[in-house]
C-alpha cells in the first residue's frame, strides 16, 4: 500500500525529541535489555555452561581480586581477562568493549580528569594550562582509576550477560540467601517488566496526543501524576498477586524443583580462576613494589 508507506518510515527530523518520547525510548530500551540479557545468557558458551553458584562465587572472586590490584598493567590484565572470557562465552566482544570502555570507562574518565590537573595532584607538568596543567602523577592516577572501573564493569557484565535470571536465583537459594529475598527478587524482575511496559505505553500515548512540547510545569505535573498512577497500580497488583499466590497454595515457603549439580568442569574452573587471581595479584605485588 504505497499511500501508507510513509507511516512505516522512521521520522527523520532534527527536532529535539519530546520528554515523553525520550522517556518511552529509555524505558523501551530497558525492557529490551532485560529480554536480550536472558537470550544472550542462553547461548552455548564457556561461562554459560558453568554451575551458577560456582560462576557467581568466581566472579565475586575476580571483582574482589581486581579491587586489591594497584598496578595499572595488572588492572588492564583483569580487563583483558574479562574480555577473553566474554569471547570464550560467545558474547560480542565489540558490544562488550563498547559497554566497558564507552560507558563505564568514559564516565570514569570524565570524573577523574580534574584529578589529573596540578590543582588536585601537583607534580611534573606534562601539558601546561596554568593551574589546570596536566601532571604526570595526576594522569597516572586518572588512567589507573579508569582501568580499575573498566575492570570492575567488565567483570560485572560477565554476570549480567552469561547468567539467566532464573539460574541466578537458584544459585542464591543454594548459597543460603533467605527465601523471602529470593522470592521477592524473582517477583520483582517480572513486575519490573510489567510496570516498564505500562510506563512506556503511557508515554507513547502522551506523545501521540501532544501537538506541542508543553511547558516544564505541565510536563512535571503529568509525570508526577503518572508516577502516582504507577504507585497505585503497584499496590493494587500486590493484592492481586497475593490472591493468586493463595489460590495456588502458597503457605509462606517457595520450594524450587531445580537441583543444581557441580561437574568436573565447574571444579576445574574454580581452581583455574583461583590460580589466575593469585597469579595476577602476585604480579601486582611484584610490579607495584618496584
Amino acid at each position, binding site marked *: 500500500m504505497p499511500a501508507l508507506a510513509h507511516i512505516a518510515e522512521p521520522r527523520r527530523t532534527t527536532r529535539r525529541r519530546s*520528554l515523553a518520547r525520550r*522517556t518511552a525510548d*529509555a524505558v523501551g530500551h*530497558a525492557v529490551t535489555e*532485560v529480554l536480550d540479557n536472558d537470550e544472550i545468557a542462553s547461548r552455548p558458551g564457556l561461562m554459560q555452561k558453568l554451575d551458577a553458584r560456582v560462576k557467581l562465587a568466581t*566472579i565475586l572472586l575476580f*571483582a*574482589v581480586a*581486581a*579491587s586489591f590490584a*594497584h598496578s595499572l598493567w595488572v588492572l588492564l590484565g583483569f580487563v583483558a581477562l574479562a574480555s577473553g572470557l566474554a569471547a570464550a562465552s560467545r558474547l560480542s566482544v565489540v558490544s562488550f568493549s563498547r559497554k566497558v570502555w564507552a560507558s*563505564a570507562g568514559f*564516565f*570514569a574518565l570524565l570524573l577523574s580528569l580534574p*584529578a589529573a590537573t596540578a590543582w*588536585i*595532584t601537583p607534580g611534573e607538568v606534562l601539558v601546561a594550562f596554568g593551574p589546570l596543567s596536566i601532571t604526570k602523577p595526576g594522569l597516572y592516577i586518572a588512567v*589507573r*582509576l579508569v582501568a*580499575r572501573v573498566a575492570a*570492575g*564493569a567488565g*567483570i*560485572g557484565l560477565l*554476570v*549480567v550477560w552469561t547468567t539467566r535470571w532464573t539460574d541466578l536465583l537458584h544459585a542464591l537459594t543454594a548459597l543460603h540467601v533467605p527465601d*523471602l*529475598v529470593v522470592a*521477592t*527478587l*524473582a*517477583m*520483582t*524482575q517480572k*513486575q*519490573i517488566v510489567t*510496570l516498564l511496559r505500562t*510506563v512506556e*505505553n503511557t508515554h507513547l*500515548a502522551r506523545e501521540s496526543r501532544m501537538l506541542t512540547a508543553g511547558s*516544564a510545569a505541565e510536563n*512535571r*505535573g503529568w*509525570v*508526577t501524576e*503518572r*508516577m*502516582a*498512577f504507577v*504507585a*497505585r*497500580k*503497584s*499496590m493494587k*497488583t*500486590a*493484592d492481586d498477586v*497475593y490472591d493468586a499466590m493463595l489460590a495456588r497454595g*502458597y503457605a*509462606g515457603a517457595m520450594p524450587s524443583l531445580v537441583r543444581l549439580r557441580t561437574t568436573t568442569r565447574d571444579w576445574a574452573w574454580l581452581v583455574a580462576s583461583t590460580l589466575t587471581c593469585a597469579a595476577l595479584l602476585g604480579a601486582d605485588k611484584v610490579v607495584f613494589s618496584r
Partner: protein
Amino acid sequence: MHIPDGYLGPQTYAVLDVAMIPIWAVAASRVKKTLKAKQVPLMALGAAFSFVIMMFNVPVIGGSTGHAVGATLIAIILGPWAACISVSIALVIQALLFGDGGITAIGANVFNMAFVMPFVGYYLFRLIAGDSPTTRRTIVASGIAAYVSIVAGSIFAGVEFGLQPLLAHTAAGRPLYAPYPLSVAVPTMAVEHLLFFGWVEALATVGIVSALVKQDSEMLAMRPAAKPLRWLWAAFGILVLLTPIGVLAPGTAWGEWGAAELGARLGFVPAGLGDLGSAWTAAVPGYAPAFIKSPTLGYLFAAVLGSALVIGVSWAVAKLLARGENSRPPKDARPPTSPTTPS
C-alpha cells in the same frame, strides 16, 4: 549516586557490605511482623516501583531533567524497614541485571540509598507532618523530607569517596581509588544534590503525594502504626550535649575562611569580600558568646540556642500551615479514578 566498582577500596566496601547484613536481618524481621504473609508481593511491587520510578525523567528548569530515587516516598507509603528492603532489592537488580552500580559496591549503594535515605526521609516526614497531619502539611513534609534525605545520602557517598585517599594511597601519598579528598568530594556531592537532584527528588515526591492525597489517600496510611518519636528527641538531646566535641577540631572548615584567614592564605583579601565581610555582625560570632568565657560552655549554649530557634521557627510555620488548611472550605468530593486506566 550509584557507585560503580573501582571507586571504593576494600577497606570501605567490605565494612559497608558487612554493616548491611544486620540491617537487612532486622528489616526482614520487622517486615515479617508488620506485613505478615502479604510481605513478598508487597515488597516485590515496592521494589519494582522503586526501580521504575528511577526511569521517569522529571522536568526541572531550563529544559533539564533528572530522575528521582523515590526512597522517601516508599518509606512514607510502606514504612522505613520495608522501604529499606524494597530499595535494596531494586539496587541489587540494577547491579546484577543491568550492570548499574558495582558488585563490590552493592553494600555502599544500599547503605546510602536504601538505608540512609528512607530512614532520614521517614523520620523527618513524621517530625514535620506530626501525628494528625493536614493535607498541606503532609505534602510540604514529604517534599522537605525527600530533599533532605537525598542530600544526606549524597553526603554519605561524598564521605565514602573522600575517605579513599586517606585509607589507600601509595608511599608517595597518591590515591589508589577515588582520588578526591574529603574537602573536595563532600562539597561536590552535597552541592550538586542541594542545587539539582534534591529539587528533582522533592518535586517528584510532592507531585506523587499530592496525586495520592487526591486520588487514593488510603495508600498514605498503609505503613505500619508508628510509635511516638520520644526516642528521637532523646537522641537529639544527646547530640546537643555532644556538640562541645567540635571545640577539639582545630582550624576553620575548608572554604569557610574569614577575611583575615583568607588574607594569610592568599596574600591578599579580595575587595568585594573585604567590603561585604564586615557588613553583618552575627549575634553570637564563631559559636562563642562574649559573655561566656569557657569555649565548651559557649559551644553548648550556641547549640541549645540554635536548636531552639530552628524548632521554634519550624513549629510556627507548621502552625501557620495548619491554620491555612483548617480555614479552607472543603472541596467537593471527586469521583474515584480507576488505577487500571492510564490516560
